[in-house]
């Protein structure tokens, strides 16, 4: 057996199924299923007392379906065949007369892997550090290996909905509450498993036990309420058919016997593979895992050492960058106006990590190592021996220029990376006589959680400065895209225009909260007016003003934005469009200036305008040399600014809709509403001239 080893301990009469599939992580493919069939048959014919499922891989127990294999024959028929075969195999193991337990030692059991455990195992032993979950919706699918049913049986409907619909992966500890998972130490895990098998001979798998009581069993009414709520939350966007399919499977499963419910899952699952937006999600997964790590093309030999790094500005961003760098083993010097301020910031970092340690998400020595890598200072003299400094002060050109001068006075050879979301490198380095040392590193907040880093190559940025920024960024675990210089670069500019489009729609007479809802229907994670508050109205306003001062023919700030800003409606603790999180604050309406010279778009057109506002900006960035390739366009849009992931990004959106059709719509919107930022990018015309109507990405 190639991907699953069968080992029988004859003395104890217990068999171990050791999973070791080809590839860096264990995945479920046709070979694995065939091996599991054989191993199950063998355990039965050997008359074992029990089976232990284990993995030979250090980090991976069993991490879902082999997507590569599926995409080789992405047909309904094939998918149906594979999933039914897996279900049959799992059922045979589960119904075998012996107990089945799994041992996880700091490994992950994801998707089909977790479903294998949920279906077949009578018990699971795990050390801390293991994770389990059902992330299928993140790749445009849903768990159809019995997941919704089997998880509900141990954790109840509410948890099943959260995990399946949210695509969640949680620490093993989370499931120990259910009684299925027992946390043990690595030394005794196998012993415990064997002991459990000895003590539970004759146990009936709960999925087939008519007397099994689902936890938190709810009345029909309560169940319907939960389902309705989940539908409203997850199925708002019709472009995400996988969420609807998952919801339908879960709901219908409530009234079906187990074996019919799991078959019904396949009925909803198989047709998904023909949906273009499902392919988009699968492709996006491959782009993020395979291509994203290498899209920023730099010469690593040109990079200076990234062992030590300095950060100027110990505010929220500076702290975030410092934390990430220190966590990845870099020595960090955190500099602010004086040492005490910087020290206080380091203390704050420590305090922020404490809950993670307390909850068991982080081991205490991880935090300790991180804190040991942090030093505070108020003195630029220390920069003399450090190769790279990241400046993370306010978005103020004079201040940034002043700091650059002070830094270069101390160490002219240092690479100066500015964390800015809008100010071009050309401006920051305008007064420097070493502009080639200056590069941009645009982080996203909160830094430890946001995976994207937009590295900005100014017209004079040297190859060494660029390589150092990218190498350091990658070491910090960030996905780097390299963009050219220009006001607000790629992501801020595109995001800013999206938010402004939201305000313009309000000025055209649409209800602000309806606009946000339409954005959710279009697939955005948050509406433009909601995001205005969560990203911070101050930031949005200042960035918008900067953009419109540099590109007056592109962007005029809607009057309402200024009015809200002046009235202090800027969110982040201050009033905004929402109060207490999600509750509309109608008082914001008084700042919306109705522009009756413009027509009011209907719902579909408004949704389209939100999407196309981002699409057109992305292509304008190609025109202006800020963006250079389509993978950076799509990965940046998804990771940085919340472009609907079901479309894979602006480039795929245009490929799918057709270049001519997209250009036609943008042109029509531009003519109807006379908004400058809808003036179509020239790139569309070039594509059409070259005969490209699809096939951008």
């Amino acid at each position, binding site marked *: 057996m190639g991907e699953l080893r069968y080992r029988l301990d004859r003395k104890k009469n217990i068999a171990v199924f050791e999973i070791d599939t080809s590839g860096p992580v264990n995945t479920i493919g046709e070979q694995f299923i065939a091996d599991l069939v054989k191993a199950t048959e063998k355990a039965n014919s050997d008359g074992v007392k029990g089976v232990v499922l284990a993995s030979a891989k250090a980090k991976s127990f069993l991490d879902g379906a082999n997507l590569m294999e599926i995409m080789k024959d992405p047909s309904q028929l094939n998918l149906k065949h594979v999933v039914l075969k897996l279900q049959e195999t799992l059922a045979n193991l589960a119904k075998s007369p012996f107990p089945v337990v799994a041992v996880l030692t700091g490994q992950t059991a994801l998707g089909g892997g977790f479903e294998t455990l949920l279906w077949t195992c009578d018990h699971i032993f795990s050390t801390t550090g293991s994770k389990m979950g059902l992330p299928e919706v993140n790749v445009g699918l849903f768990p159809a290996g019995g997941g919704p049913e089997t998880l509900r049986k141990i954790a109840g409907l509410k948890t099943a909905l959260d995990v399946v619909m949210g695509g969640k992966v949680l620490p093993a500890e989370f499931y120990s509450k259910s009684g299925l998972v027992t946390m043990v130490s690595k030394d005794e895990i196998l012993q415990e498993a064997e002991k459990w098998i000895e003590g539970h001979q004759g146990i009936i798998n709960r999925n087939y036990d008519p007397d099994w009581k689902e936890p938190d069993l709810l009345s029909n009414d309560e169940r319907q309420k939960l389902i309705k709520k989940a539908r409203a939350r997850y199925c708002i966007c019709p472009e995400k058919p996988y969420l609807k399919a998952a919801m339908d499977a879960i709901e219908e499963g409530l009234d079906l016997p187990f074996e019919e419910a799991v078959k019904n899952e396949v009925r909803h699952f198989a047709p998904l593979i023909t949906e273009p937006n499902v392919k988009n999600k699968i492709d996006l997964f491959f782009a993020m895992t395979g*291509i994203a790590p290498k*899209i920023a093309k730099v010469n690593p030999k040109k990079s200076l050492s990234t062992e030590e790094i300095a950060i100027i500005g110990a505010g929220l961003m500076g702290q975030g960058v410092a934390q990430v760098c220190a966590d990845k083993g870099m020595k960090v010097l955190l500099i602010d106006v004086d040492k005490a301020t910087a020290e206080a910031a380091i203390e704050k970092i420590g305090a922020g990590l404490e809950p993670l340690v307390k909850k068991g998400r982080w081991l205490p020595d991880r935090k300790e190592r991180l804190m040991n890598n942090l030093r505070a200072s108020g003195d630029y003299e220390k920069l003399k021996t450090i190769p790279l400094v990241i400046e993370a002060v306010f978005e103020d050109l004079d201040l940034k220029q002043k700091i650059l001068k002070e830094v270069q006075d101390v160490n002219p050879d240092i690479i100066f990376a500015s964390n800015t979301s809008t100010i071009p490198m050309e401006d920051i380095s305008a007064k420097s006589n070493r502009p080639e040392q200056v590069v941009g590193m645009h982080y996203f907040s909160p830094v430890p959680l946001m995976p994207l880093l937009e590295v900005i190559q100014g017209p004079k940025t040297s190859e060494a400065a660029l390589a150092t920024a990218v190498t350091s960024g990658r070491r910090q675990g960030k996905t780097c895209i390299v963009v050219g210089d220009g006001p607000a670069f790629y992501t801020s500019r595109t995001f800013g225009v999206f938010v402004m489009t939201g305000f313009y729609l309000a000025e055209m007479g649409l209800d602000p909260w309806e606009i946000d809802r339409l954005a959710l229907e279009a697939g955005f994670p948050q509406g433009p007016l909601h995001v205005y508050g969560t990203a911070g109205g101050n930031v949005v306003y200042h960035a918008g003003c900067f953009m419109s001062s540099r590109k007056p023919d592109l962007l005029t700030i809607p009057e309402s934005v200024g009015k809200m800003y002046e009235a202090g409606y800027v969110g982040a603790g201050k009033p905004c469009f929402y109060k207490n999180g999600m509750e509309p604050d109608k008082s914001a309406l008084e700042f919306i200036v109705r522009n009756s010279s413009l027509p009011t778009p209907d719902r579909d057109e408004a949704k389209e305008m939100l999407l196309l506002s981002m699409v057109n900006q992305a292509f304008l960035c*190609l025109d202006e040399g800020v963006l*250079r*390739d*389509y*993978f950076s366009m*799509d990965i940046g849009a998804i990771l940085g600014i919340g472009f609907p992931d079901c479309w894979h990004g602006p*480039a795929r959106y245009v*490929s799918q809709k057709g270049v001519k059709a997209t250009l036609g719509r943008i042109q029509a919107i531009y003519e109807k509403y006379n908004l400058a930022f809808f003036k179509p990018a020239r790139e569309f*015309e*070039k*594509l*059409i*001239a*070259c*005969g*490209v*109507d*699809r*096939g*951008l*990405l």
Partner: protein
Amino acid sequence: MAENCVIVSAKRSPFGKYLGSLSEMEPLDVGVKVAEATLSAPGKSLKENIDQVFVGNCIPSAFETGSVTGRQIGLKLGMDVFTTTVDTACCSPLTALRMALWGMRLGELDSALVIGVEAMSRVPHSSRQLRTGVRIGEVKLPDPIFPINYPGYNSVAVDASDGAEKYDVSKRMLDTFAMGSHLKWADAMKEGKFDDEIVPIKVRKGRNEYLFSQDEMPRPNGNIALIQMLPTVFGAKSTTPGNAPGLNDGASAMVVMTEKKAKSLDLPILGTIVDQAGETDMPFGISWIPAKAIKKVLERNKITIDEIDLIEINEAFAAMPLVSTKILAGGDEQKWYGLINRTNVNGGAVAIGHPVGASGLRITMTMMYELIRRGGGQGVAAICGGLTQGEAVIVRV
């Protein structure tokens, strides 16, 4: 005024990919099959009515005996008429056509069979060391097609990307045009447009025998983003396998006649060869020589580029059509896009493939058949050749 010269028949083989369907067939036989089909396409055999044969080929070492390959093909066809084999690199088949035109204009010929043939899969590695024996040390077996260059000069991939840089054609534009080539081919294929020109050929590959009837190179399911990820080759700044054609096998052929002769034989006239011209420039000017050749032939005939309905510029690299149309547009961006829009409308060598000695006739007939489908018009086809010679031909339908 000289005789009016017309095309009465034009066919080609499907183009095979490197080591693909045509790679196990003798190139002589590929040439013969295509020529036979061309000679009989008008419904009766024209063999008896051909005064001379002209054959273009670029890399003769692919043949068993790489000398008078044209005569070898002619004899296999059973045609004992004077046969000329010419090598002007990728210009060869259009130079062969131009020689036929000379003959007809001079009155020496009334008709000619013109053939272009290439078999890049069959080019042998070769060594000059073996002739005298090797006393000690390695035997070097250079590959004449990797890269394609001439002693003392850059590889053509480098010259092409330098030309793109000189005329400010971005790498993204090259990659976009390359993807467009595949997509335009796919659309044309779907509409059956290549049925007019392709002769299916029975081939043997390994143990399989089958009818080879469709170009093998195109990859319309790719995308620009993936092309952008490919590394550059041979030290070029922007040339990658994605914006270049492959190394291909194939043959194409035409029968041309004076209009008088065609009429006397009651043959259908597919198109008229208005004029042809050859042109040269500095050896590195390979990306813009099609523009120079086109200008020359248009000016001589007092035709402006705006009066041209279709343009074919061989995609030796994506740089050639882009640089050349940009020059023809006089640097006017909008006019440039307009010209690109009329260039290689059914895809080009990046998709279809570039059997170097066969492409010249291929672009001419692809353009001619498209003019016929559109109900007439005039087009210009141009190709660049090694060490920067160019051929251009105006065809009117």
